[in-house]
C-alpha cells in the first residue's frame, strides 16, 4: 500500500498543497478506516456473499442474522456485560487509588519522591506478558480463577502509572494559593482533596477514566489466562475464540458482527471524546 507523505510546510507552495493535501488526507482516512468498514460490511452480508469469489463490495442483499446469532448461539450480551463490569470497576478503582497518589507526588515534599516517580515511569514500559506467570500463581493460590477480581486488580495496576502521571500534571497546574487558603480555613489534606481539588480536576479525571476504560476493555492476555468459564469471558477473548467454533465452519459473518458490536462502545467513546483522549495520551507520554 502506497502512502503519500505531505511535506509541504512552506508558505510559498500553495499549489502543491492543494494537490497533495486532499490525496494525503484521503489516503490516511482510507488506511485507518478500511479494515473497520470491511468488518461492518461483512457483518451484514449474507453467507453466500461473504464466501463469494471475487469479493462482493456492494452487496445487494443485507441480513442481520449474524448479529442475531451472537445472542442465540452464544451469550454475547453477557460478554458485553462482563467487559463493562470489569472495565468500569477497574477504572473507578484506578482513579480512587491514583488521584490521591498523584496529588502526593505533585505537591507534597516526600522523602523518596523521585524514587517513586521513577518507579511509576519505568513500570509503564513493562510488558504484561512478563507478569502473567507470577500473577497466575497468585490467582491459583488464592483460588481466584474465574473470579473477576483476578482481572480487576491487574487492570487497576496496569492503568495506575498513566493515571498518576496525567493527574499529577493536572494537580501541578492548580494554583497553590487555593491549598493554602483551604488549610487556613481548616481543611485537612483529605477534605481538601475531596471537596476542593478533585472537583477542579474533573476534566482530567474524565480523560484518564476514558483511557483506563479503553485499556481495560481491550486487555487480552490476563483475560485469556485467568478466566476460562464461558459466561464470564470478556469481549476480546470471546471474539477471538469465536473462530474456533468448529474445524470446518468458521463463522466469518458472526465474527464480523462480534467485532462491530464488541467495539461499538469504544468507537462511541472515541467519537465523543476524541479531544480529551488525545490530550491525555500526549500528557502522559510526553512527560516521560
Amino acid at each position, binding site marked *: 500500500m502506497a502512502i503519500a507523505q505531505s511535506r509541504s510546510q512552506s*508558505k510559498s507552495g500553495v499549489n502543491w498543497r492543494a494537490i497533495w493535501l486532499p490525496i494525503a488526507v484521503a489516503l490516511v482516512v482510507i488506511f*485507518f478506516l478500511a479494515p473497520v468498514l470491511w468488518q461492518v460490511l461483512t457483518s451484514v452480508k449474507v453467507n453466500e456473499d461473504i464466501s463469494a469469489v471475487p469479493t462482493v463490495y456492494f452487496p445487494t442483499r443485507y441480513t442481520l442474522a449474524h448479529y442475531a446469532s451472537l445472542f442465540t448461539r452464544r451469550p454475547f450480551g453477557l460478554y458485553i456485560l462482563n467487559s463493562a463490569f470489569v472495565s468500569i470497576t477497574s477504572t473507578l478503582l484506578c482513579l480512587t*487509588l491514583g488521584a490521591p497518589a498523584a496529588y502526593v*507526588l505533585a505537591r507534597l515534599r516526600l522523602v523518596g519522591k523521585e524514587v517513586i516517580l521513577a518507579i511509576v515511569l519505568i513500570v509503564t514500559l513493562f510488558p504484561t506478558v512478563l*507478569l502473567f506467570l*507470577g*500473577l497466575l500463581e497468585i490467582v491459583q493460590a488464592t483460588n481466584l480463577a474465574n473470579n473477576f477480581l483476578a482481572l480487576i486488580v491487574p487492570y487497576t495496576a496496569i492503568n495506575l502509572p498513566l493515571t498518576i502521571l496525567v493527574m499529577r500534571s493536572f494537580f501541578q497546574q492548580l494554583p497553590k494559593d487555593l491549598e493554602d487558603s483551604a488549610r487556613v480555613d481548616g481543611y485537612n489534606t483529605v477534605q481538601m482533596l475531596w471537596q476542593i481539588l478533585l472537583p477542579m480536576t474533573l476534566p482530567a479525571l474524565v480523560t484518564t477514566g476514558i483511557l483506563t476504560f479503553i485499556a481495560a476493555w481491550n486487555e487480552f492476555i490476563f483475560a485469556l489466562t485467568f478466566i476460562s468459564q464461558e459466561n464470564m469471558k470478556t469481549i476480546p477473548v470471546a471474539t477471538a475464540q469465536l473462530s474456533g467454533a468448529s474445524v470446518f465452519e468458521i463463522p466469518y459473518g458472526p465474527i464480523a458482527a462480534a467485532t462491530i458490536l*464488541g467495539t461499538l462502545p469504544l468507537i462511541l467513546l472515541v467519537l465523543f471524546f476524541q479531544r480529551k483522549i*488525545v490530550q491525555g495520551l500526549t500528557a502522559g507520554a510526553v512527560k516521560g
Partner: protein
Amino acid sequence: MKLDVVQKREQKTGWVLLLPALIVLLVVYAYPILRAFWLSVFTQNLGTELEQVFSGLSNYGRMFSDGRFWQSLWNTTVFTTSSVLLELILGIGVALVLNQAFKGRGIVRTITLIPWALPTAVMGVAWAWIFNDQYGVVNDILRRLGLIETGISWLGNPTLAMIAVILADVWKTTPFIALLLLAGLQSIPGDLYEAHSLDGATPWQSFWKITIPLLMPQIIVSLLFRFAQAFAIFDLIQVMTGGGPGGATETVSIYIYSTVMRYLDFGYGSALIVVTFLILVIAVAIASFLLTRARANAAGVR
C-alpha cells in the same frame, strides 16, 4: 535533611495517601518479576511432576542451546524493527498531514484514533479474515489488479505471515505515534520555518534541518514506548497466527506463553521471562540515554 513539623505532617499524610496505589503496583508488577528471577533457578515441569527442584543456572544453559528460543528472538527482532520503523515513517507522515489546517481535521483525527482504541485481539481476527487465502480482501484486490492468479495463503506462508502480522500491528499503533509526534510538531514555532525559507531552504531541507532534530525527543519517546510494546507483542500474533506457520511468527512472548501454559514448564518459562526482562531494561537504558542527549540537542538548536 532535618524536617520541620509541617514537613513531618506532610510525610505522614503523603505516605498514607500513596500506599494503596503503591501496594497494588508492587503486587502486580514487582512480585511477578521477582518471582520469575527466583523460579528461574528451579526446574518445575511435567518431568518433575510439577515439584520445584533447584537446578541452578541450568535453565539458562538450556536457553543457549534452545533453537526455538533463538528463533523466537529473531522473529521478535524482525517484527519489532520492521513495525517500529514503518510506524515511525507513517507516523511522521500522518502527523504532518494532521498538522495542516483543513476543514474536517477533527473528524480525520477521530478516524486516526480508532485503530488505537480497538482491542488488538478483536482486530487480529478481522485481519486474519482480510488476509484469508480464499475470501480475503487483499487477495481479491491483488487478483483484480492482475498481480496474482490464485489466492496467496498469507497466513500459511512463513514470510507472508510475518508481513501480514507486521502490517496489522502498524495499522493498530501508527495512530499512537502519529498523535505523539503531532503534539511535538505543534510545539515547533512557525517562525523557525519562515526564517529557514528566507535563507533559501526548500521544504525538504527544512524537514531534515528543523523538523527532525526538534522532533527528536518525541521520536525517541515514541520509539521507546513502541519498542517495549512491540517486543512483548502477544495479543495480535496469538489471535492471527498463533505463532505459526511452524513458528514463523512465534515471538518471545508467544513462546513464553506456550512454554508455561501448554508445556507447563514453569522453571524454564521463568528463565525466559528473566532474560526478556533484562533485554528490555538494557534497551530502555540505552534509549533514555539517547533521549537526554536528544533533548539537550533540541534545546541547543532552539
